[in-house]
């Protein structure tokens, strides 16, 4: 019964979305407040309808209702509860439902928090959201209905792909979608502004918190996905330049650019057309990513089931939305008035530089991702574009960008003084150079590039700290005043500094693990030992073990340093009973910021076991850095200037009023 209710709710949501797509736009043209006021009400209604559908599907999973085809295909009665719930989106249909749920969630948020938006902008933006919602609801209802029944109902389900039976599935897709789909708000606002033909700094102020929220979630989502792949797949890698990873990375790069250009627009009314274009591009890349991942044109762990009609349908949505948006942009962009002048050496100039490099980098990733698909379609030859391509194209583009980052926040708006800024950065540059020398000295034989790479990370970290110090008045006032000023700095200043600092931390992790990790593959017998990094591993043998829905062989290793055992690490080969599918559970031992990573292989004829051991120095810095970046995003979100309705001017007035009393 609840299944039919869920299905019905989805159909109702489509009806509501269709109303929301049309009437508010008519209202904004006719200046009809009544019709425009429909938009928020409809947005909230469709959120609750889709939520109902989602709950219905979740209930079917929790109660293991195998009469629902989707549940039968992807669940099992013995599966632990957390995987029953996260399994809801561990398949094509369910993940599309989650996609839509997050889309309407964002629409509802706009309806809820958009009280002080101009009525026409709000109505149009929500209407555009409804176009997207309607398109994807059609997609789900026509090609990917999760509520399909089976008759007769099977007794037992086919279980979830064991690789997905991990807490990562509970976190990674929702976070990723919050980011991915969150950019739809920027898109809708851009389209609404183009329809309206009017755009100003206030527009940027409304769009920025949404961009920031989406960016924060996407940063965390990508990082989570990376760590998940790292420990689950047992290959020891944290980023593969896989097309599916690129699909989420491109919106991140474009979104990062958008975040920075919206800043220029908000503060200086410049870069309007560019910002609108970036908003369109960012969400277009999200749509492209959805197409690449969900259509089955790529072979990957994310392509759950391939069905050509689905691919064509999403491609249709992609063409209509991206094509339509760009056409509208071409028609209307000229009517947007340009603002604010600035010199090349200025905060604006630095942010333009940032945008230039980020969008170019996005383009190289796009080429590398799509080229094989295009080539196969045109000439029929199959190629793979792997890490070497991206290292050669994306890598060099990042170097000047990362070098320039510390300059940006220190430069003044409008016209900056590069020499003065450079002088402020002397200390940061000095520390970075000393780090490079120290790396060469202590890690004997370290490649020069690695030393410079780590120095680059240190440069970013010191640069952010320098920025905060100067904002607090370092060198001009005494420490106590500095501390007072430091505490009074706007949250967005901390946000910027944290995001850039996190980037530096990640860079250090990436460089260190690329340059200094060691890998060895060897056969070990019980009692045998091997050396990895500064540690010695002694194989204690294999031991069978049984889990709720799998059996496994665990291999235990005693880890010691200088002859003193201080830990054990366990890797396992599992067989999941329902699918008879083997997986490898990597054994990971975190020692400080570094990790020892052990993967079990097959048993050899002479009674040994193949073992792969990596020593990954400083690897956790990669993800710690991204966490710091996300925290920066959150801190920035709580800046009071971003809370529309409490702009700086009224705050001053309020303060003045207080004093008067």
């Amino acid at each position, binding site marked *: 019964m609840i299944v039919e209710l869920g299905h019905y709710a989805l159909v109702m949501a489509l009806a509501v979305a269709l109303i929301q797509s049309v009437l508010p736009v008519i209202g904004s043209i006719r200046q009809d407040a009544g019709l425009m006021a429909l938009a928020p009400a409809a947005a909230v209604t469709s959120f609750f309808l889709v939520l109902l559908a989602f709950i219905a599907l979740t209930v079917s999973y929790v109660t293991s209702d195998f009469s629902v085809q989707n549940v039968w295909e992807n669940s099992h009665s013995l599966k632990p509860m957390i995987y029953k719930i996260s399994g809801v989106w561990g398949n094509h249909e369910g993940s599309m439902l989650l996609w839509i749920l997050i889309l309407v969630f964002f629409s509802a948020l706009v309806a809820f928090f958009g009280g002080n938006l101009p009525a026409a902008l709000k109505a149009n933006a929500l209407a555009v959201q409804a176009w997207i919602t309607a398109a994807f609801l059609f997609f789900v209802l026509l090609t990917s209905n999760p509520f399909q029944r089976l008759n007769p109902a099977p007794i037992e389900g086919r279980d979830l*792909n064991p*690789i997905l039976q991990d807490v990562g599935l509970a976190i990674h897709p929702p976070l990723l979608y919050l980011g991915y789909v969150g950019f739809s708000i920027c898109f809708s606002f851009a389209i609404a502004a183009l329809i309206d033909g009017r755009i100003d700094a206030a527009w940027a102020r409304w769009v920025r918190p949404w961009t920031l929220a989406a960016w924060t979630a996407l940063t965390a989502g990508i990082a989570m996905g990376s760590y998940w792949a790292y420990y689950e797949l*047992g290959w020891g890698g944290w980023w593969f330049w896989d097309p599916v990873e690129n699909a989420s990375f491109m919106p991140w790069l474009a979104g990062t650019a958008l975040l920075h250009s919206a800043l220029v627009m908000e503060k200086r009314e410049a870069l309007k057309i560019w910002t609108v274009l970036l908003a369109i591009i960012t969400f277009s890349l999200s749509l492209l990513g959805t197409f690449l991942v969900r259509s089955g044109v790529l*072979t*990957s*762990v994310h392509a759950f089931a*391939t069905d*050509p009609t689905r691919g064509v349908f999403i491609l249709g949505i992609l063409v209509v939305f991206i094509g339509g948006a760009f056409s509208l942009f071409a028609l209307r962009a000229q009517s947007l008035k340009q603002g604010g*002048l*600035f*010199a*090349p050496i200025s905060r604006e100039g630095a942010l*333009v*530089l940032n945008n*230039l*490099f980020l969008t*170019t*980098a996005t*383009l*190289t990733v796009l*080429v*590398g991702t799509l*080229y*094989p698909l295009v080539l196969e379609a045109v000439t029929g*030859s*199959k*190629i*793979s*574009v*792997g890490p*070497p*391509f991206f290292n*050669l*194209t994306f890598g*060099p*583009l990042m170097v000047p960008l990362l070098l320039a980052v510390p300059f940006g926040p220190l430069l003044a708006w409008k016209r900056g003084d590069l020499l003065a800024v450079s002088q402020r950065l002397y200390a940061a540059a000095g520390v970075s150079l000393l780090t490079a020398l120290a790396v060469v000295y202590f890690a004997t034989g370290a490649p020069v590039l690695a030393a410079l790479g780590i120095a680059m990370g240190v440069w970013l970290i010191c640069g952010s700290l320098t920025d905060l110090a100067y904002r607090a008045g370092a060198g001009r006032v005494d420490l106590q005043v500095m501390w007072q000023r430091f505490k009074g700095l706007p949250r967005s200043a901390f946000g910027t500094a944290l995001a850039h600092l996190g980037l530096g931390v990640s860079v250090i992790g990436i460089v260190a693990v690329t340059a200094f990790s060691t890998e060895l*593959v*060897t*056969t070990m017998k019980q009692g045998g030992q091997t050396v990895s990094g500064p540690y010695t591993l002694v194989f204690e043998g294999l031991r069978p073990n049984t889990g709720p829905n799998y059996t496994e062989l665990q291999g235990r290793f005693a880890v010691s340093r200088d002859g003193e055992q201080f830990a054990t690490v366990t890797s396992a*080969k599992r067989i999941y009973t329902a*699918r*008879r*599918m*083997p*997986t*490898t559970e990597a054994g990971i031992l975190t020692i400080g910021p570094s990790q020892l990573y052990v*993967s079990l*292989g*097959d048993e*050899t*004829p002479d009674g040994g076991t*193949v073992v*792969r051991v990596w020593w990954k120095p400083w690897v956790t810095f990669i993800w710690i850095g991204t966490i710091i970046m996300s925290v920066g995003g959150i801190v920035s979100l709580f800046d009071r200037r971003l809370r529309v309705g409490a702009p700086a001017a009224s705050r001053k007035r309020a303060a003045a009023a207080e004093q008067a009393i």
Partner: protein
Amino acid sequence: MTRKQKRLAVIAGGVGVLGVAVLLVLFALQEQIVYFHSPTDIAEKPVNPGTRIRLGGLVAENSVARGQGTTVEFAVTDTANTVEITYTGILPDLFREGQGVVVEGAFRPDNALFVADTVLAKHDETYMPKEVADSLKKQGVWQGNEE
């Protein structure tokens, strides 16, 4: 600076960075991409030893032989032709005889042995690498569901 000069500076900078990126991409596409071949492609038109390629097909029945230590030898077939592979390392969980795999590596100059440094199998037991499925269809031995 006037608005016009500023615009020129931005455009010049943009074209400069984009130009560098295009050069990098063209160079990388020339040097760093890896072509996919089936065993039949190789029988028809041999690949130069040392050139990195991807090779896909089914793991031939009774071909997997564990050598000393961590080296494994097996053969990849598309039923018409077969290529011998040698690989040192840990095979993917779902590697077994009769399954579709893609290996990446190069032929050794001295003999016809293909030295793989990467072996990719699927993530899921119902999944067949698309390249392998396509080349099996070309050989007329595809047994999976019609896509």
